[in-house]
């Protein structure tokens, strides 16, 4: 008996459904229903319209990973399901695989996309916005989404084609290292942005640019406070009330 193969249209449908993965995100089982919703076209391809109850049950259990990594998990899961449907032996079953990878992929995705790519794209957007250009949001969206959308699509195909070997491929990509490089670039851009704003501030107040260096220790102090857990809201209120008080007094 041959293993059922997924049609390219099925891949497309799973890809599009991955954008709805978190539609019913809930505290109890997080993305459970969303994961089943995403892989449903693939399961129908494998089992027909009547998906067996045990398959339905195991793919609606607790599930939580980074949404951009979910198609990769879906690809491998469907390949394992297709194999088990025709009685192929595998070192792990689909359920074990999901439980094994969801947390590491979630951590990887958080560091790479939320902690690395997004702040970097936002800072580039902000530097453009500081010139008053409405292209800033467009550039931000392009810088962030071209890799994001490619990653989702290639992850799905990679997961299906390489099955469990996809984990090794992801390891070879050294994504955590890439996340660190992105964060370092972000830190440099924060420095550039702060210096630019200090310079513009001095220009506006008719002060020599050297006064801009005063901003450096203040930003470092605020960064330290934020690192210690002081809320952004408090820092905003502290800054604005001080500036408004100064403006009222002088």
């Amino acid at each position, binding site marked *: 008996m041959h293993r059922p193969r997924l049609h390219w249209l099925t891949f497309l449908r799973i890809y599009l459904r991955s954008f709805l993965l978190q539609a019913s995100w809930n505290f109890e089982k997080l993305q459970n229903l969303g994961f089943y919703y995403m892989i449903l076209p693939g399961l129908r391809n494998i089992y027909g319209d009547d998906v067996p109850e045990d398959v339905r049950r195991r793919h609606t259990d607790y599930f939580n990973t980074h949404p951009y990594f979910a198609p990769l998990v879906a690809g491998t899961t469907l390949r394992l399901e297709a194999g088990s449907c025709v009685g192929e032996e595998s070192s792990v079953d689909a359920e074990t695989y999901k439980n094994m990878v969801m947390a590491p992929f979630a951590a990887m995705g958080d560091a790479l996309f*939320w902690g690395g790519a997004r702040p970097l794209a936002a800072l580039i957007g*902000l530097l453009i916005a500081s010139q008053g250009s409405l292209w800033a949001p467009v550039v931000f969206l392009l810088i962030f989404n071209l890799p994001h959308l490619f990653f989702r699509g290639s992850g799905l195909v990679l997961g299906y084609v390489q099955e469990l070997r996809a984990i090794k491929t992801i390891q070879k990509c050294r994504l955590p290292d890439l996340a660190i490089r992105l964060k370092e670039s972000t830190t440099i851009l924060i420095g550039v942005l702060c*210096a630019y704003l200090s310079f513009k501030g001095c220009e506006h107040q008719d002060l020599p640019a050297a006064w801009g260096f005063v901003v450096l220790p203040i930003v470092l102090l605020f960064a330290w406070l934020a690192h210690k857990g002081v809320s952004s809201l408090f820092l905003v209120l502290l800054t604005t009330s001080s500036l408004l008080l100064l403006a009222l007094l002088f």
Partner: protein
Amino acid sequence: MVGVDYLLAGMVSMLTGLDRVALVQVMISRPLVAGPLTGWALGSPLVGLEIGMLLELLWLGRLPVGAAIPPDDTQVAVGATVLAASTGHFVGLDGMPLVILSVLIAIPLGKFGQVFDKLARHANDRLAVSGYDALMSGNTVKMERYHLFGLITFGLASLATALVIVLIGTLVLYSVAPALIGAVQEAGLSLQYSLILVGAAVLLGTTNVNRGISLFCTAFIGTLLVLWLR
């Protein structure tokens, strides 16, 4: 501003709010995008851009990991843009001072976003159970429908947050604007830069990078020297 404008702003609020968690996540929910988008719907995209700039970095370092719910900076951007685009005429303010006042009033109200978001997720708990039961009884279409109902709960939560920010924000703006007009106008540009710098400092403090301080200081000093000496 006419009713159609408010309707458009409401649609932008829901669309950008859905992008935070429930739908697509292409980052139109970031203030740098949500602000100009709302501004564009109201005919003032540059006002939205200025608001987006002020808010973008403030909570960027708060990651939406697992069940953690960061403050709703999307609706803060949407609400502040609506305030700045619609109330200026009545409070006798315009330009950057109005933008800054709107942002300052909207920021604390962003906390409501966390409350509404939490309520939406609790409502989804029930949807998930109903969806699971439907699936186990063999009704896949019903399960899909329950799953997609989640979009409505998240969309309504976003809309409710924006509404609270606009309604309470308008009342606060009317009451505090007369007292603060002078000071805000005086401190205008300094306030604008300071708010972005606070955001940058918070992002710097929450980005865990080895040698982060030296990288930041080198970039800061190098850039300022280049700008100074050119």
